[in-house]
């Protein structure tokens, strides 16, 4: 560390070159941060690790097939199940079809009991429970469309016709909920199943999927198998998985996003390695006489090696840290802009940051290695004689 000053001034002997190199490292890590967040948003593991104990049962044939409402009670009464609730895809938009977001008719009490992370002020919760046509919206949706408590909001469903024969449904906004789990799931609207079931023109008594939670007495895998067994050979067989696996499977349907991201980042880092390595090589080449002088003064080969390596690492860290910080900042803005398309939001998790730091170190080391070895092996006499 005592040579830090020397390394620092060596690094800046060509200001423009170093600045440009740092800037390209900056861009590389900015991309790394943003693409990793993007991948995370799609791989579904972001969804809810802490809620892994929640299970979700869907129709075995596909998610779009309905289950009879009676199933909910049967699941709830199964030994080992603490509580069960249900939800259905409503598929409506506000004003224009591009304003599509998720709305779900639910059984309010059991739903809120199973999703404690959706926090709602008690008076709003009470008002919602007491209003048949009431609905609560997530913070992100309220902000995006300017919904306020007390508003009467008309939504157009692309799927559900009501008894009047039209697809316009009206809701009273009674509350705005937050998602305290930090997964950015405040992008939905929840309303009463009773209102929905009474008003819809078809498929009465049918629901989309069941969400249940064990009481801890039996492992989830056993519960899931039992639930599916209960409905086996009925006209609506189920498939039960834990919520995280469900989200992951769904996310996988979009394709191998991870592979695409890895390929792009591979190209980016390969390039950065070349850029950085080239800078280091040039910088060492120019410094050969100086390095020879250092060696003459008694600097050991190990010290020289360390100094050059450290210079490469330092270069990578300055650019890399700045890139990650910038990515974090940009992601906050992007999450807001894409709140309804990417409900999970775009975030950097600890793992991404750890990888980023590891890559900074690796890029720094790898780019400095050849020049450093070259510098270490330098023969003083030859190097000094070169000019």
């Amino acid at each position, binding site marked *: 560390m005592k040579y830090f000053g020397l390394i620092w001034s060596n690094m800046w002997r060509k200001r423009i*070159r170093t600045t440009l190199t740092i800037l390209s490292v900056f861009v590389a890590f900015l991309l790394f941060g943003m693409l990793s967040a993007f991948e995370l948003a799609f791989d579904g593991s972001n969804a809810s690790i802490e809620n892994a104990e929640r299970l979700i049962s869907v129709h075995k044939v596909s998610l779009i097939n309905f289950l009879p409402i009676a199933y909910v009670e049967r699941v709830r009464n199964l030994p080992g199940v603490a509580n069960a609730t249900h939800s259905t895809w409503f598929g409506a938009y506000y004003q224009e079809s591009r304003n599509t977001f998720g709305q779900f008719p639910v059984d309010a009490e059991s739903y809120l009991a199973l999703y404690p992370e959706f926090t709602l002020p008690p008076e709003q919760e009470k008002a919602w429970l007491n209003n048949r046509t009431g609905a609560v919206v997530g913070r992100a949706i309220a902000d995006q469309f300017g919904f306020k408590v007390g508003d009467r909001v008309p939504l157009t469903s692309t799927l559900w016709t009501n008894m009047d024969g039209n*697809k316009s449904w009206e809701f009273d906004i009674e509350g705005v909920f937050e998602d305290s789990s930090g997964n950015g799931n405040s992008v939905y609207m929840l309303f009463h199943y009773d209102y929905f079931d009474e008003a819809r023109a078809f498929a009465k008594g049918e629901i989309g999927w069941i969400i249940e939670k064990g009481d801890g007495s039996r492992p989830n895998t056993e519960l899931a198998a039992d639930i599916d067994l209960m409905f086996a050979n009925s006209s*609506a067989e189920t498939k039960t998985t834990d919520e995280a696996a469900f989200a992951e499977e769904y996310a*996988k349907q979009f394709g191998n996003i991870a592979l*695409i991201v890895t390929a*792009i980042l591979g190209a980016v880092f390969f390039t950065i390695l070349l850029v950085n390595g080239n800078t280091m090589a040039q910088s060492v080449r120019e410094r050969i006489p100086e390095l020879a002088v250092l060696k003459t003064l008694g600097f050991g080969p190990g010290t020289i090696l360390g100094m050059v390596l450290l210079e490469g690492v330092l270069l990578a860290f300055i650019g890399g840290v700045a890139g990650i910080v910038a990515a974090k900042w940009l992601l906050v803005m992007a999450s807001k802009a894409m709140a309804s398309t990417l409900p999970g939001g775009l975030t950097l998790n600890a793992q991404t940051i750890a990888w980023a730091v590891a890559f900074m170190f690796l890029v720094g080391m790898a780019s400095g290695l050849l020049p450093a070895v070259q510098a270490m092996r330098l023969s003083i006499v030859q190097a000094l004689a070169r000019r």
Partner: protein
Amino acid sequence: MKWLRQVAALTILNIRTLPQRLGSSTVAVVGIGAVVAVFAGVLSMANGFERTVAGTGSDDIAIVLRDGSNTELTSGLSLEHTRLIAGAPGVRRDANDEPIVSAELFVIVELQKKTTASAANAALRGIQANGQALRKRMEIVEGRMFEPGKYEIIVGRGAQHQFVGLELGNSIRFGQTEWTVVGVFADGGSVFESELWCDVRVLQPAYRRGSTFQTVRAQLVDPASLATFEEALESDPRLEVDVFGEREYYAEQAEPVTNFIRFVGYPLAFLMAIGAIFAAINTMYSSVSARSREIATLRALGFGPSPIALATLLEAAVLGVLGGILGGAVAYLGMNARTASTLDMQSFSQVAFNFAVTGELLIDGLLAALAVGLLGGLFPAVRAARVPVAVALRGF
């Protein structure tokens, strides 16, 4: 003229001496190449998806959906409605004076996707006897057509390629019913190739749909009849439907996914391009500083500052174009015609498509590479023109 000759001489000199600066020149070329490869690679997905989805459908076929449903999946029509639709003016009739229409069901089944080995949605479509005639490019490439009234399915080439268990002769179970794969069909690379088809009359009971359908496809007399047909249906008080030309319908279906890929792809390529500009500037600066003595010598010999600047700029442009060619070649050889599939939210099912690295994309990539090279060469070119002759000749 003399000025031009100077520029030409200097540019040739710069380019011929490129091998001497192999390291840093390679860095610039590879950096720019990576940008172009990623740009072309990512956007080839958007192009390929668009080509598949928007390339589906024909101008003289109309699709009728329930009013307000923007996709087949969310639509629903009763038997009576389908009869009214078939009887409307503008529909072509066959030799027996029967309208050429197909009332269809479009449902989702879950199959294993080969690439991810996890469950994914597949589209299962029930068609009527005319369904095949309504897809003019459709042909059975293996096996045979399903027999009406039987639990038999034919699978699209794309579907067979991406899902597990769709080999000819296999039987698959969806819910309570067991189906046999009896044929494989092609449809000119359209979306239909990602689907499974069966007789709508067996699909209705299997999915408890009674006598209802989701869409009606109608063969129009000619593309111009669409207006007549649409007007007739919309003025009929017994019907509440939306009418689309089939081609127009699929063009709209393609938009969300292609827009999303472009929305991600362009900023990504832009950011990478900025990174590559930094690398190019670096390369060109070192090219200039490594040759400052030669440049000073040239100046002393009477070469003007502007030819020297321009030659430097051209050298950067050459590096850019080389990078563009490299990146385009990598994208083309590595990605073009590769098959992938994604979940199309409109139909909520997997759509298989081929990456399409089109000529247009390659030209765009090359232009971008040229721009990156020129931008990277700009400041170093100015520096080259300003090399102080006396100082540079003395050494450092």
